[in-house]
């Protein structure tokens, strides 16, 4: 196991704190050689990591006969196999286009409502004085790790009584409920860092709570709200379980529509591959556009 030693030895920082003279040449030679090995190893790992996704992508651009005939890696030797036929077939199906729209109808409100209600509560917890404030906040923190599974059965009963079982409203409500603890936790911590002087100055100018909230807290809380928004958006967009339980054939999002396809798998890669890829496009775009906020949001939110 020489591998872990490599990065510790090689690189610029060792130069500043170089060991006794005479060792450096040897270690430089050693790290040069193992640096090559390291590079090859990392490239292999990276290839291993992208291969599954490339497989899906390549499969989604082949027609069913080619898929049945040979592996997706054939497209590299026969690029003529590439076709967008599977995509046009898929997007011609009403089931798919409807469910794609449903995904948007579910994700957008579930994200916005969590942001609005979460920032209001976050502001109250950070800057307002009321009895039992810390206890209430502790209760919210306790809810951070509650598994969604525990609410599936009670909520189907409740939603059934309210007449929203199987509707988009029900799915959105459920996502809001389980998105809120993290939203409040994240935003309260961020809002509490806003300098007191800013709030006091605004207050001296005669601003009320609502004006403080909209003109000071929300603009300054931007970065945290962005992280939260991205995270909540992806969490809802990628959700399958909640929608599987609470949506019906008119309100089901793309993930559920595709899940039904997986139940009879091997025959229909030509549906699943482009379908899965369409469901991945938005998350991947978000990922590449907002890497920073995405990473911090996912890391902070992984407790869910």
């Amino acid at each position, binding site marked *: *196991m020489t591998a872990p030693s490599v990065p510790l030895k090689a690189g610029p*920082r060792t130069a500043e704190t170089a*060991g006794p003279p005479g060792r450096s040449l040897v270690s430089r030679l050693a790290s040069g050689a193992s640096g090559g090995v390291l590079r090859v190893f990392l490239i292999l790992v990276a290839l291993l990591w992208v291969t599954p996704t490339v497989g899906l992508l390549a499969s989604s651009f082949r027609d069913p006969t080619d898929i049945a005939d040979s592996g997706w890696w054939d497209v590299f030797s026969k690029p003529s196999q590439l076709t967008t036929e599977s995509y046009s077939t898929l997007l011609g199906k009403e089931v798919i286009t409807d469910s794609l729209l449903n995904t948007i109808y579910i994700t957008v409100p579930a994200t916005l409502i969590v942001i609005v209600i979460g920032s209001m509560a976050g502001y109250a917890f950070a800057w307002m004085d009321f009895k039992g404030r810390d206890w209430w906040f502790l209760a*919210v923190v306790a809810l951070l790790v509650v598994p969604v599974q525990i609410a599936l*059965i009670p909520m189907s009963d409740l939603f059934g009584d309210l007449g929203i079982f199987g509707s988009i409203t029900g799915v959105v409500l459920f996502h809001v409920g389980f998105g809120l603890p993290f939203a409040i936790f994240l935003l309260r*911590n961020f809002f509490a860092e806003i300098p007191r002087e800013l709030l006091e100055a605004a207050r001296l100018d005669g601003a009320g709570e609502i004006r403080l909230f909209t003109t000071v807290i929300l603009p300054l809380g931007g*970065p945290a709200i962005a992280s939260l928004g991205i995270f909540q958006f992806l969490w809802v967009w990628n959700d*399958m379980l909640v929608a599987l339980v609470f949506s019906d054939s008119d309100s089901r999002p793309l993930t559920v529509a595709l899940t039904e396809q*997986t139940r009879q*798998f091997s025959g229909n890669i030509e549906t699943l591959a482009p379908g899965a890829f369409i469901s991945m496009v938005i998350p991947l775009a978000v990922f590449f556009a907002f890497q920073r906020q995405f990473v911090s949001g996912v890391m902070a939110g992984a407790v869910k």
Partner: protein
Amino acid sequence: MASQLATAGGPANPVPPAGKRKSVMGTRPWVAGLFLLPAIVLLGALVVYPIGYSVWRSLYDADGSGFVGLGNYGDLFSDDATFTAVKNTAIWVAVAPALVTGLGLIFAVLTERVRWSTAFKLVIFMPMAISMLAAGIIFRLVYEADPDQGVANAVVVGVHDTFAESSVYPKARPSAVSDLKASGGGSFTSTGTVRAGSPALLPLVGIAPNKVPGSPGDAKAAESSGDGVSGTVWLDFKLGGGGAKGAVDAGEKALPGIEVEAVRDGKVVASAKAGDDGTFTLPASADGAQLRLPASNFAAAYNGVDWLGPSLVTPAIIGAYAWMWAGFAMVLIAAGLAGVDRNLLEAARVDGANEWQVFRRVTIPLLAPVLVVVLITLMINVMKIFDLIYIIAPQPTQDEANVLALQLYNSYTGGGGNLGLASAIGVVLLLLVMPVMIVNIRRLRRERRR
């Protein structure tokens, strides 16, 4: 833990300083109430109430009429299906977080000084962005049993065939007119013996002429070759029929690569491989021996590993999970690594520690807090794992791959659904994450007091 994660997550979400903050000058309590009301109502109705309901419901039987006490919890362990789920959840919790954290640690340490580490991290982290559904579909494709479809088996078969010779003609057999008879174990031996100077004819059938692997050329009758024994192995059949049985006719395909052994008194005295025109030549020592086509010519092709079969389905899905989450562990550990004091490492080196010892005795202990956070986060995540198994495990082996969250869903929706048992599973899942909940609360209170 959540707060620690939030700190590690970057500048966006620091933990606020301690100390009692006063409100921004005289907020009236009812204003605070208004700001909090929507959140409190929604959390109460959607998160708190269900917990109470589930606990209560778990004490009743399937249709909710009879009180059974803790009976449903007992069934968790006595019922076969749910017990498999309990067992598999335990396997997941024991294996997956450790595996993912290990991978994350290796990647974080190895990329620390690589210039293109950002690109590498991007590649490893990317699967975090996609849904478990998409990841599931991706890995069903990877694990497809057919080596011509699934890349995992394509690699396994490729490696296998490189080291163990594979047979090219699994379905071929001697034609009825030939002298070759089955001689046990899948091989065929001639009843008569061969003589130098009179070429042997070994006609085979059983393959469609247009499906012969490698599309070889036509066969050629072997010429006698002096002292040696010569002969032809070919496909004694051509499309459209015609030609005499047992004779090499124009248009009949050669079967190159077939191994021919000369056997005398049960011992192999010589062997040769058929060439591109189907002919082979054995040395003079084969004179008077019987000819045998060993079984290796006809062995069924190796088809790789049954990834999603009963015995491997859980490890296979854990592999898919590691693919998704290694990036998460890597990024967190890399953030922790950046905060490690270089002077401590250097001091250890000056004291004569080698790099492995520095890593093992200094770096790892310094990283311990981060590693614990990563492990616990992953454990919570893994306890609730559902989508990946639901998508990847095929119907016939889904029972073998069962976990608690999936069993809850099945008890709830499946035929003969048992809401009492499903509720009990939900409560168990909550109890499993309870320790983390308590740690979260205690950390927060400690921060307040400071």
